[in-house]
């Protein structure tokens, strides 16, 4: 087995053939078997396989791009489940971005944040309020709703608003450490939600519990974005930006400062690191990703209400980060994708299937145990199993490994990040 693996690792051509074959086969099966969730998931899994290959980063990105931009939507678009797959894919993207944001705060800077969804809410409401007639209630000038064209600007506004709140939250709470911080952020998250839920009085800003309905869809060149298949691309672009940003930050002065603060605050300070500023930056950057996605979420749902931003939501995002592997960008992406797909697609499909069986009398399930009601149970069980069998996370964080040549003065000028190689490239864990 080990032998076999190392042969594959050594031979790039073999890898190329295998991954190519895999993509083609899963592509075709999704193309042909339109309703098969399995085919959809398998095609997605090609990205995971790709991650384990030893190709250069550039090739990996290219292939991943091809799969995400062309193959996946195209194969899915051939059939009826298209929009629902794209809906799932879009939500996956949204959650990945949020999880990556939280990963900066929790995974890299080591600040446990249990109220992270607040920033998502801030993004969503920023757009929701101005993209419905709601803003007329308190804005003395302007004519609302703003047109869908403003959506693009709002992505940035949402990003900034969330970052600002990240800093505002950070300034007072950063005196507090460890699990105390967790509870303070939790309190902050709840405060934000409760305020949004109640800001229909004295001035109606958020429309309270009734939520904001009929949020303007984004508009570009006269085209309305209405379908998940369209949002999919918006999310993909933002996600790409986010991943690049995170990657770059991770191996930079800033990323190192975050990790240093996580590992040992006193030593970090003694290295000249401004503790508060570094933590604030983690809060702000993490929050900004959520803010952007909040805007997208509001536009996609066309409806914003406080129930989407509960504590459970924050906890779910945290679960994604921890499950994926704290501090590990690929891990967190995988964690977020898994949890979201599990919740939205796999569990639903599974319960539908069990339901069908029981309605058709194939199996008999007491009503109390009706599969539709057992989703939490199953989800809980899966969480426990994952945690027990992969306590370090699905793809644990890895430190950058440098080549000695790149560190001594004799070498030429390697291209960007050429020196940064993931260790995983050397040890393929196909057994995982």
């Amino acid at each position, binding site marked *: 087995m080990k032998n076999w693996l190392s042969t594959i690792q050594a031979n790039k051509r073999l890898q190329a053939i295998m991954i190519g074959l895999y993509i083609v086969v899963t592509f075709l099966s999704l193309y042909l078997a339109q309703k098969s969730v399995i085919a959809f998931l398998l095609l997605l899994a090609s990205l995971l396989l790709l991650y384990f290959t030893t190709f250069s980063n550039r090739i990996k990105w290219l292939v991943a791009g091809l799969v995400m931009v062309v193959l996946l939507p195209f194969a899915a678009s051939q059939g009826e489940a298209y929009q629902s797959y794209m809906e799932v894919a879009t939500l996956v993207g949204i959650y990945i971005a949020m999880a990556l944001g939280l990963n900066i705060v929790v995974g890299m800077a080591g600040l446990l944040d249990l109220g992270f969804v607040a920033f998502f809410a801030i993004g969503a409401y920023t757009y929701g309020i101005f993209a419905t007639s709601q803003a007329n209630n308190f804005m003395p000038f302007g004519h609302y709703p703003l047109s869908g064209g403003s959506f693009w600007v709002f992505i940035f506004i949402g990003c900034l608003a969330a970052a600002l709140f990240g800093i505002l939250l950070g300034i007072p709470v950063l005196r507090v450490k460890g699990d*105390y911080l967790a509870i303070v952020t939790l309190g902050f998250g709840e405060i934000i939600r409760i305020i949004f839920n109640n800001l229909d009085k004295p001035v109606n800003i958020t429309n309270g519990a009734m939520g904001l309905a009929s949020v303007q869809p984004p508009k570009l060149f006269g085209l309305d974005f209405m379908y998940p298949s369209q949002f999919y691309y918006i999310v993909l672009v933002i996600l790409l930006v986010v991943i690049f940003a995170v990657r770059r930050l991770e191996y930079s002065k800033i990323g190192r400062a975050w990790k240093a603060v996580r590992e040992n605050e006193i030593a970090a300070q003694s290295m000249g690191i401004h503790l508060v500023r570094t933590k604030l930056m983690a809060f702000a950057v993490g929050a900004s990703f959520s803010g952007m996605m909040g805007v997208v979420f509001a536009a996609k749902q066309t409806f914003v209400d406080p129930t989407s931003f509960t504590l459970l939501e924050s906890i779910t995002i945290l679960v994604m980060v921890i499950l994926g592997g704290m501090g590990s960008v690929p891990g967190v992406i995988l964690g977020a994708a898994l949890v979201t797909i599990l919740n939205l697609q796999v569990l639903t499909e599974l319960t539908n299937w069990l339901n069908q069986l029981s309605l058709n009398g194939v199996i008999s399930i007491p009503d109390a145990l009706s599969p539709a009601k057992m989703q939490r149970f199953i989800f809980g069980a899966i969480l426990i199993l994952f945690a027990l069998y992969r306590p370090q996370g699905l793809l644990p964080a890895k430190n950058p490994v440098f080549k000695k040549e790149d560190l001594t003065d004799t070498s030429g000028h390697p291209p960007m990040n050429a020196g940064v190689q993931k260790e995983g490239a050397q040890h393929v864990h196909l057994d995982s």
Partner: protein
Amino acid sequence: MIEQVLHTLPQVLIDGLALGAVYAIVALGYTMVYGILELINFAHGEIFMTGAFVGTAILLTFSGLGWITSMPAIITLVLVLIVTSVLTGLLGMGIERVAYRPLRNAPKLITLITAIGISFLLQDLVRFITELKNGNYILTGPNLFNKQIGIEASSILSVFNDASVKSSFFIVLGVAIVMMITLDFFVNRTKWGMAMRAVAQDRETAALMTVNVNKVIALTFFIGSALGGATGVLFAVQYGTIDPYIGFILGLKAFTAAVLGGIGNIRGAMFGGILIGLLEMFAAANLPIVSHGVLGAEYKDVFAFAILIIVLIFKPEGLFGKVTVEKV
């Protein structure tokens, strides 16, 4: 304005104390487990909930057998408390064994995941069993201590309105106080309590002192969960109706209380719990009056959390927590 607040004050205090006592004992459970494993045992709220269900189930069985009327209520209660706390104590130990112990050397936060997983499992399990037996997962137990007792607060100070208390209030408060004193004594004055604290600080070295670490941790979980379960019973007695989802919000509040008091600190948890209960009740009753109608009762949690945050900003180790300047 002040006058209005004062009118209801006696009643608000009593209601706040009742709720606060419940928070306080649940907070004790959080604090104990946190103290020893530095783990926010998210499942603790669900253990509390399970305790409430187990207790109610026993009570319902008793009343089915006609025992409730034939036995003094207080004896029934003590019996139910004991049985339930033993059961939930064992449940807590089981959870520790299955879901936490294997991860003891794993990164700290991963246990948070199993804790959340256990919460979900317990919620659904209890729901399932109750629904199977009862057809509905909302359960209402028999009334035990329902007598209303009037308190003539107006005779103390004329601005006060009279208040009334359910007799269960005294039970809840009494049991809470007894539990706290016992626990405080146990942890701070006994050998096993010292072992617990030692294990909390350095497991490996505690083992070198002949302490069986697994046993101590299991014991901690047993006590913490037994407390949680017992509180569940008290809760059911005080509020009558329970459902499988009561653990979440209550657990959250209780944890907040534990933090407010200084997590890991037993007196702190107790104090924090009562304080949060009082604050919440006070806010719900008076926020609209004090804010001239701008903030409604629905802001009570904002109020409670804001106080928590303010306290922690000025005293980051919680009200009773000791400042531990790290020795550099």
